[in-house]
């Protein structure tokens, strides 16, 4: 095989997968229900697994099982760039095709297509792990660059890694418009060092998603910039003997309201990463969980976000115990909301910061 690829698994691999302890009887019962079959929870799990693996299964069944077994590659966070340019969609299409040629020349696979008005650059590459079980031998890495036309600019979404950052730079540099006509920006608070404003960005971000209510903030990661080490030392250091606390993470319920966090804020710590859940502003809402961060916590650049799945409302006041993954449409829906709100908050914090700076200079 020229490129390693995700391949379909046998009935035996499916049987083995379904027998693992991470797959609960509830999971299996639900898989049967989706096929219109009601089974007893008293049926031994092995019998249910044997029975289920007689069905043809598809890619989505495979992904669902692999996901519960923790065997899908960790999804990467998404980051968005905003491009103001005199180039049009056709120019982006041509630029994306230039990228495709170079990717294919490197023996990876690339497809470009339109999804409504958006251009999708779909890149697939894989890695193979023979030491793992059949369900997990081939880790498929498939990632997309999405080029979306918005009112006055283009939004480019990509996985937050260097390889894809390079791909996006290639697309932009291939645009026919003169370089001076093309301006790329992203969400960052690089120029704002005020720790309270940096934390404020996250607080407003998790609270201000349109049509959703904040349900819980479960994890907050804070960082203290006022220590004596250089940025590089901090990023690379795992030394236990560093005497100052630079990073703290708090996990629990309603962490934003905790006294512990308030005291860290008072000591100059600011939030650089957060995990929170939202619920629809409806009766019997589903609950969605996300994580967002500035990957460069010191410079506050590289803002990215990821969905951590959702708890489906089951009925009778109960939720599914296990989270489901968002489908493509729902994921895009949230990305659009996040991009809009992050831009707005960034602008308002810049305005607030400029006000603070002006006041300070007046006082001087």
């Amino acid at each position, binding site marked *: 095989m020229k*490129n390693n*690829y995700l391949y379909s698994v046998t009935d035996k691999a499916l049987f083995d997968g379904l027998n693992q302890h991470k797959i609960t009887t509830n999971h299996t019962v639900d898989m049967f229900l989706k096929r*219109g*079959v009601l089974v007893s929870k008293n*049926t031994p799990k092995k019998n249910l697994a044997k029975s289920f693996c007689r069905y043809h299964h598809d*890619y989505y069944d495979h992904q669902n099982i692999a996901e519960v077994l923790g065997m899908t590659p960790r999804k990467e966070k998404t980051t968005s760039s905003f491009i103001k340019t005199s180039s049009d969609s056709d120019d982006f299409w041509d630029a994306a095709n230039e990228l495709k040629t170079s990717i294919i020349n490197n023996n990876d696979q690339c497809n470009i*297509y339109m999804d409504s008005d958006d251009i999708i650059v779909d890149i697939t590459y894989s890695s193979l792990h023979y030491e793992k079980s059949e369900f997990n031998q081939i880790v498929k890495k498939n990632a997309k660059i999405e080029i979306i036309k918005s009112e006055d600019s283009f939004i480019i979404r990509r996985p937050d890694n260097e390889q894809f950052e390079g791909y996006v730079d290639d697309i932009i540099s291939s645009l026919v418009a003169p370089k001076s006509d093309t301006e790329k920006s992203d969400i960052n608070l690089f120029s704002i060092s005020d720790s309270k404003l940096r934390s404020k960005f996250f607080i407003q971000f998790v609270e201000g998603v349109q049509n959703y209510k904040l349900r819980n903030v479960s994890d907050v990661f804070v960082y203290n910039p006022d220590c004596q080490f250089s940025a590089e030392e901090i990023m690379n250091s795992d030394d236990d003997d560093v005497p100052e606390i630079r990073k703290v993470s708090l996990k629990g319920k309603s962490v934003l309201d905790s006294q512990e966090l308030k005291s860290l804020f008072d000591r100059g710590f600011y939030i650089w990463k957060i995990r929170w859940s939202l619920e629809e502003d409806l009766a*019997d809402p589903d609950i969605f969980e996300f994580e967002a961060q500035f990957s460069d916590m010191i410079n506050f650049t590289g803002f990215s976000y990821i969905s951590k799945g959702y708890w489906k409302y089951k*009925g009778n006041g109960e939720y599914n115990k296990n989270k489901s993954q968002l489908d493509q449409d729902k994921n895009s829906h949230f990305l659009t909301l996040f991009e809009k709100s992050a831009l707005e908050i960034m602008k308002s914090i810049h305005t607030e910061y400029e006000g603070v700076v002006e006041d300070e200079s007046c006082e001087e």
Partner: protein
Amino acid sequence: MAENGPIEDVAKKISDELFTRFKWRRNGPMDQDFLCEKQEQHKPAKKMQIHTHPTDVVFYYKDPYLNKTIYFNTDLKSYNKSNINRTKIEAGLSSLAKSIACAKRSPDWQEKYIIDNNNYEIRGLLFVYNHDNESTKDFYEFFYPPKPQSGRRASAVKVDRLGIEKNDQIHIIEPKVIDYMITINTDIEHLIASKKFPDDDDDYGFHYPQLTLHKSSEKHLNKPATIELITSPYLIIKHNETITYNKNGDEQKHYDKGFLIYYNREGKEDMEFLYLLDALSNFQIFDGDNKIRIRVTNRNNVPAIKSVFIRALKNYANAWGLAYDEDKDIMKQFNIEINSINTAKKFVCTQEITWD
């Protein structure tokens, strides 16, 4: 001759219009009651008479993987937009759970319906159709009610409360599945009319690839579609050549033998087809020599499904280093084609069978 009751009429209609193509058979008397074998547990507290369970009709087939005959003690039900709710479904399913628990123990039931005494399994089947053709409700929604536009969600059917015995199974054939079966039926009729599929029932059968844990014990072509196959994402039919004979008795071949695959998913992503192609290759079906026709039956299939499939086929060919000419139709080169087919007419049956 006595007139048939509504249950018998509907059962015959299902058998003739729906299940024959899938090689299911009907056996024994219809619309019968049999003696409850668990009076203490099943008999309602206030009931004075001896308790019985209903059997509307029994369908059966031989499962090629299990090498045993599967009998479905079937409960026929109809509904319209307004007469169905969680309580009725829960009561219907609970009654079916008790029926199969007793059918397994009942000499009376077995004498009436069992043909192969050695190796069989009795399951429940709730066959539920929509007699006004207006409700589009997916049955899964009764178990996981969707979000309403406003107000609270409906209550869910609790599988735990149905009292299904260990190792028993109840299958539901609901309007969505009935439409899928009718669509396949109608499509095959069209293919036969245009001489692209053999007319004789013995010239096609449902295909059971040799798997690792499951081997098909039957060598002949004429295998039925199991309920597992019908409710899977796709099903494979293996067929012979289409041959006709002219007046002089000369043979005329109209269409090659091959595989007809009905695909019941939306075709949203390349990966979906890439996975399918790999599975077909593992089944030793997709090899460039066998003629493969994929017919997409899902009513929500994406308009660009052919492009998605071609992208997947190219990716697959590239991944395995399979040579093809970029300037020519790649599907022709691999002897595979894909087409979306219209969802056929609904199962037309205005006969109402109540849930009470």
